[in-house]
């Protein structure tokens, strides 16, 4: 295994292990809930980066995967009595396949047209689900309390789900790293730089883009399943919250698009920042404004994000820190 000899691989493992271990220190539930949110943000940002950073396609509706994953999972558990593990894997697979098929269609669109289509898809799916009676319409799906019993009661189930979410986070980082180092990833970067040139050089652009789109759907869908299982319910407004989609873009840009470390760092910092803003009474109403100003400043003055800045200051980092 070449992967096992890469220091960066072990960095991901260490980071994930630290995340998993921290709240166990003194069974700190508050810390766990904070970290769960960070981990979800890292998952969303890291997977979104496969599209924005690697392929150069802005997906404004990435949250649709997260929401669909949540819906499929809760529906399978509450209506069909599935266990959590098969349900989330199935949800991830179905969402990923849907994304692949959808991608074959909408990824023929470029630039702004693609971005518009992704917003349309998220809104259409949200409105569809809000009207879809089998999934509870606008009321959503509520898990029966018995669903937690199979996992040793709610208290224990929440810890298990926490570890699973952290695991998905680790896998997201790993996926991001492996794709970046692969020939496939090189093809994606070629598409980002100049799609027509990439096609001429033999990159199968439509297929590559669809695979990237589909890959970026799987882990967020699984995470959505786990997250809404933890909540015990899922409603359309929360599952397909366009804001979270947008905030994921801010995270990716903040950390540095196109890098592996960047989006994760960006997501973590953004979560911290948001937490601070929400607790300050004078600023809690302005967190969207501050996020917007932050995004604008990054775009105007530091389009490479945090990692771009670090690379400029210490060019040597480029080799070790992906």
């Amino acid at each position, binding site marked *: 295994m070449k992967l096992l000899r890469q220091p960066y691989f072990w960095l991901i493992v260490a980071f994930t292990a630290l995340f998993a271990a921290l709240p166990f220190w003194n069974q700190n539930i508050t810390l766990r809930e904070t970290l769960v949110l960070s981990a979800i943000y890292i998952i969303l940002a890291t997977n979104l980066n496969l599209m924005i950073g690697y392929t150069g396609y802005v997906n404004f509706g990435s949250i649709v995967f997260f929401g669909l994953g949540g819906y499929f999972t809760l529906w399978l558990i509450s209506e069909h009595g599935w266990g959590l593990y098969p349900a989330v894997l199935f949800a991830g697979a179905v969402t990923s396949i849907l994304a692949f098929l959808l991608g074959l269609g909408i990824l023929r669109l470029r630039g702004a047209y693609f971005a518009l*289509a992704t917003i349309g898809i998220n809104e259409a799916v949200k409105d569809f689900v809000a009207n879809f009676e089998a999934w509870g319409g606008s009321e959503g799906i509520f898990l029966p309390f018995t669903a937690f019993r199979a996992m040793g009661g709610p208290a224990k189930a929440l810890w298990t789900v926490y570890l699973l979410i952290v695991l998905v986070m680790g896998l997201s980082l790993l996926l991001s790293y492996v794709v970046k180092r692969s020939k496939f990833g090189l093809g994606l970067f070629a598409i980002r730089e100049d799609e027509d040139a990439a096609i001429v050089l033999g990159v199968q652009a439509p297929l590559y883009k669809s695979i990237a789109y589909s890959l970026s759907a799987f882990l967020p869908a699984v995470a959505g399943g786990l997250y809404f299982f933890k909540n015990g319910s899922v409603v359309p407004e929360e599952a397909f919250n366009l804001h979270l989609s947008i905030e994921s873009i801010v995270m990716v840009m903040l950390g540095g698009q196109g890098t592996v470390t960047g989006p994760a760092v960006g997501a973590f910092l953004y979560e911290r920042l948001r937490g601070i803003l929400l607790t300050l009474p004078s600023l809690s109403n302005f967190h969207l*404004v501050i996020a917007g100003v932050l995004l604008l400043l990054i775009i*105007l003055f530091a389009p490479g994000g945090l990692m771009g800045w670090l690379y400029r200051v210490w060019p040597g980092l480029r080799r070790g820190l992906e």
Partner: protein
Amino acid sequence: MPEILASVLDGLLIGLVYGLAAIGLTLIFGVMDVVNLAHGAVIALGMFTVYLLYKAGIHPYIGLLPVAVIGFLFGVLIYLIAVKRILDGPPLMTLLATFAVSMIITGAGTAIWSTSPYNINFPVTTLNILGYTVTSARLIAAIAAVLVTVFLYIFLYRTTLGKAVRAVANNREAAELMGIPSQQILAVSFGIGTALAMLSGALIATLFPFTILSGGIYELKSFVASVLGGLGNPTGALFGGIILGLIEGSVAPFIEVSWTNVIEFVIFVLILLFFPTGLFGGRR
């Protein structure tokens, strides 16, 4: 049967207002290849501007004039701050920058006005046209939308500045070689696009209750309308708006309102896929 026709008529009238919003979006895209994601936020801002003017004792229809002026200045400001610097960069950047502007406006609006609904109460009469009743507010909104569009066309085709805007839209380098100050023209175009969005918002505010988040719905409708008409084509956008209004009007009696959005977005994605230059041909 009469109910359907009345509903279609309603749809046609509101469609003209959608068309106005779509023209604002499509004009900016046509001139500088920027999809303005702050469009919805600006529409909402138009609603609240006319509301504040109304609270200050200015009749909403008279308030349209200051709304247009404020909209223009605000648009120029957005262009100078958020768009100018990155206009020649990757398209992704202008998308994100205008989105950031949208977040700032929406966030500030939420902090000031919360997300609860507002409405403008002014006396409205109902009129009888060929046996169908329409409210005067709807009729006036539609007429105002048509008038603004006519003015825009006179501006674009009959004035020097308007011709300069079209020249820059056609080919910026060539226009610059002809001595047209393209930066100023771009700022003016962004201003006009924003003014149109705020005007349409103000007109919508005279018809329906609104919140600071209402802009999002109309932004999507503007996208659908301008994509229907071909991005960058103002006439197409107006017709796109009318088509959208007619669709809404003709399905309204049969299905619940909550489904109309689903139908519109499906049309939107299908049009993007199969007629990416719109039904009336794009700019090129």
